[in-house]
């Protein structure tokens, strides 16, 4: 009887030791491979709202509607260095709306009025058309619906506005519902450093 217990004990020890070794090996391999935190990010070159070549498609609002949390973390971000600073911005204005008495379109595109338009540089007080304008998106009002992204897309605009995941808002789910729903598989996991880069001006589709 006692021999059996001892043998079982010994066997248990051996198996436990082996399992521990296995754990150590697995954990060691994984730790060695570890490369920092990974987060979800939108690839502007694939996103329907910003990728070149997608003509006539409707605005894709899945980035804001699919998230399991009530307010998704996707926002429209304007890469200022790539923005044209135009007097009439096709992402700010609805260029298909009637022109008002000032010569500007009468309607704005953003349903939440999240874009602020202000003149920059050497401001001409007499002729507003003589100024460059900065378009700043307020991320508290923006919900990532993508309408302005579509308006900025080449060739209508310069493609400086893209949809991006904002990490102060994203829960960072292991399984991103938006990523699963995206028709172009534009949302993937990236290293934090790469994910924080804002490109704008979507790369060509090849």
């Amino acid at each position: 009887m006692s021999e059996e217990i001892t043998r079982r004990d010994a066997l248990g020890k051996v198996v436990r030791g082996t399992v521990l070794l296995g754990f150590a090996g697995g954990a060691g391999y994984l730790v060695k491979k570890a490369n920092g935190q990974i987060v979800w990010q939108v690839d502007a070159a694939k996103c329907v709202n910003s990728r070149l070549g997608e003509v006539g498609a409707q605005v894709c609002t899945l980035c804001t509607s699919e998230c399991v949390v009530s307010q998704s973390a996707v926002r429209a971000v304007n890469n200022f260095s790539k923005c044209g600073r135009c007097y009439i911005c096709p992402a700010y204005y609805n260029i298909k709306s009637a022109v008002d008495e000032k010569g500007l379109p009468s309607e704005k595109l953003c349903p939440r009025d999240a874009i602020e338009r202000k003149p920059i540089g050497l401001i001409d007080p007499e002729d507003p058309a003589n100024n460059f304008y900065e378009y700043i998106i307020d991320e508290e009002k923006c919900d990532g619906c993508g309408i302005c992204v579509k308006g900025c897309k080449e060739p209508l605009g310069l493609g400086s506005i893209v949809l991006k995941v904002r990490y102060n808002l994203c829960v960072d789910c292991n399984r991103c519902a938006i990523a699963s729903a995206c028709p172009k598989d534009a949302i993937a996991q990236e290293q934090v450093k790469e994910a924080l880069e804002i490109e704008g001006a979507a790369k060509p589709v090849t």
Partner: protein
Amino acid sequence: MKYKQVQVISGKGDASDRFVQTLRSIAVDGRNRLYAVGDSELKIFDPDGRVQRRWPTSKPGYAVAVAADGSVYVGQAGQVEIFDGEGRLADRWSDAERLGRVTAIGFLGSSVLIGDANDRAIRRYETGGKFLNNIGKNNRMQGFLIPNGVLDFSVDADGIIHAANPGKHRVERYTPEDHLLGHIGRFDGLDPSGFSGCCNPTNVTVVGRNRIYVTEKAEPRAKVYDFQGKLLSVIATVVFDPNCKNMDIAVDTRGRVYVADTVRLEILAFEEDAQP
């Protein structure tokens, strides 16, 4: 006035008459031959659309123009190359301060006008290469507003320079001494006689004393106005690839309008439709 499409010249491909990656500028000479620059090559098409001659340029070409004596000017990034009619390089102008990306070339008497897209101004040079003055830079914006990256202009029969200012949705008229005489055009997203989007028209060519031909992007189209700014005709709209931008336009002595489709890399030819 209505126009009908009569021909499609060139296209995308590897053959000698086709372009591989880019088609950026077209021009017509006095004998109605069509000159087109794209990739790093210049191709000359006869009036029937067959490639007659072609030669390489040292850098990708952004602009082409044919002088009265038959020499061919090709604008590139940082330089202008001047070829004779057979393709031999006669001269190369480079000016680190004044020649960035040359997107348009025109002639006015004995001067050569060169459009610099980097500095957003037109440079006026003597035929020998001596710089005379800038055009279009003496304003609050310090140049033309060209977010599309192409500065295009054309010289009319009276020596007035018509330059497209897309950021302001108009075509402006300048004297060679840089006096702004006036402009035509206004923004309008709904009315076809206006210029839509953020920056239109992208390209312009002027014929005689009363015709301004322009092309636009984002719903690409080619239109023709008179000098008072009245829209005479929408030459074509849906036949272009919807992603076209900066389509160059040229008109020959027969009134045939050529437009370069920058995505499909083909040149579409239109003629006035005689039928009412």
